[in-house]
């Protein structure tokens, strides 16, 4: 120790000390910065989950239960996944305004962040279908013709061959797809909202879903060269229109021809 004490005033010591101090600060900083993002994300996640839980308890728990376990009036949400929450809430279907055969689409009460928070909360309860990524929703290279075949096999029975929607049993209906976004279509196939069956990635892979979306998007953009589309259900609607509408005009003309002039 004596030898050390004797040399502490040596100019080299100062340099050495500075080097050690710099190393220490740099090391601590490096450790701190590498740990911080993970912690920050975890905190952000936890914040979103807490916020989502708050919104859930306010808006959803009266039907789905305080722990999302489900009640007599609403199914359990454990395991439905973030995709289901996003679909139901961002289209205004949930929360329902009143019990009924089917939740109708209505103006949305929540911001995008609110929806994401609730989705995060429900997803934190149990694993379920996640919100599709931008890559999954990219249908630009998809085969529209193949999508048409798959749509007619899997979707047209309820949503009608041109996506106009149709009636189901006891007041329920399959909605029109003419204003649906790619994300809504994808999430609906993935989660099976309300009475729609689930078309999982195992039976309808991502490329097939993209093809179906491309087909629906093509239908949405398709014009109706003749004017009124009449639901695009073909000769039945057109015939009904002629019989019910145009024949009334013809009868009017026939009456005018037959009436005696005064």
């Amino acid at each position, binding site marked *: 120790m004596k030898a050390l004490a004797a040399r502490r005033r040596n100019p080299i010591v100062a340099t050495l000390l500075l080097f050690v101090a710099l190393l220490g600060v740099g090391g601590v900083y490096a450790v701190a910065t590498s740990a911080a993002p993970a912690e920050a994300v975890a905190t952000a996640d936890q914040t979103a989950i807490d916020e989502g839980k708050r919104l859930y308890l306010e808006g959803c728990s009266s039907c789905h239960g305080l722990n999302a376990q489900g009640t007599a009036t609403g199914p359990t949400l454990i395991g439905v996944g973030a995709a289901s929450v996003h679909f139901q809430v961002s289209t205004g279907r949930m929360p329902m305004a009143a019990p009924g055969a089917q939740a109708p689409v209505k103006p949305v009460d929540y911001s995008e962040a609110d929806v994401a928070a609730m989705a995060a909360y429900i997803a934190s309860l149990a694993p379920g279908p996640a919100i599709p990524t931008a890559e999954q929703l990219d249908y630009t290279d998809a085969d529209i013709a193949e999508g048409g075949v798959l749509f007619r096999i*899997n979707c047209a029975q309820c949503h009608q061959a041109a996506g106009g929607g149709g009636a189901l049993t006891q007041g329920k209906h399959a909605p029109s797809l003419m204003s649906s976004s790619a994300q809504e279509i994808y999430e609906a196939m993935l989660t099976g909202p309300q009475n729609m069956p689930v078309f999982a990635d195992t039976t309808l892979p991502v490329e097939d879903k993209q093809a179906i979306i491309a087909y629906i998007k093509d239908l949405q953009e398709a014009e109706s060269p003749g004017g009124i589309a009449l639901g695009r259900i073909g000769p039945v609607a057109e015939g009904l229109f002629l019989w019910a509408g145009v024949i009334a005009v013809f009868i009017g003309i026939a009456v005018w021809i037959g009436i005696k002039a005064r």
Partner: protein
Amino acid sequence: MSEITTRDSGSLPDHGHGAPEGTNPDDLARPLYEGPGALPAADIPHRPRRSDIDPKAARRAERQVAALFVLAMLMFILFVVGYIAISPFTEVYVPVFGLIGAQNFVLGLTLGLGIFCIGAGAIQWAKKLMPDVEVVQERHPLRSTPHEDAEALDQYERGKEESGFGQYRIIRRTLIGAMALLPIPLIVLLRDLWSPKDGSFGPSPVELLSTTAWVEGMPVVTDGTYVKLRPEDIPVGGLVSALPENIMEIQEAEHNLNARGKAAIILVRMEPDEIRAQQGDGWDYQGILAYSKICTHVGCPIALYEHRTHHLLCPCHQSTFDLADAGNVVFGPAARRMPQLPIGVNEEGFLVAKAPFAEPVGPSFWERG
């Protein structure tokens, strides 16, 4: 405008051609109609039109008719202008009709209105300005006169004699033979209806309607993409339209879609405790049920499956089947439950049929009882 009254000549009252009673003697504008086969009707009260009495009204009617014809001319000119001036690719928004081709719209509108104006002008002309008189048109009796009857009979007798039908015996007999055999081809075409049961005439229609491509061990593939399925591929609440694995081979061999039409099925998966009844013990595989896709009413393909109610709805006539309750009919005109296909997995873990359909799929038919 003339009013034509028809009646049997037998009941026509004899009142001659004079001015009928009950008309206004001041009606000087009334024209007389003296056409053939028509008699002024005495018992229909005549009321003169305003254009018959008032020359001003008559001139107004004249102007109206002319205006309609001028409008027609204008429309035809506009048609030509529209054809030349408007590009076939221009679109225009028309209320009610929506966004439509401007040229098509103008061409249809002008041509239609032009033709309508000619017709309306002609009708207006006839109603307001042409002679206005009630007439009776006589209708001759429907029965032929005795003279016509006699002539027809006479021609028949003469034809019989001249053809020599009674005279040439061999011609008569061969003609009768030809006529007797004429129905044979028609009956042979219907031979399917009584095919012998031993199969010597090929499969009977009953057999054709009662069998499908599903046999024991036949793997299930998705419709459209023809991929074999594992039970874990189908989530609870899932729906898959499916076919037997060899469907494309059969289709290419038979050159028709009959096999596909009969073998189409849907697979649905529910929680095993949700299944209240099945058509056979253990015909599901861990809650996966396979049912025919063909409605038992008139054979529409149906896949409108509601995964919460487990109802399968036919869009054609609203027959509803409960897939959680052995496919029984819960609503609609279908008289039979939806046939169930027993399924299991093979040693490779793929879903397969455990047996063929136990009952014919699709609509009822006579011999099914």
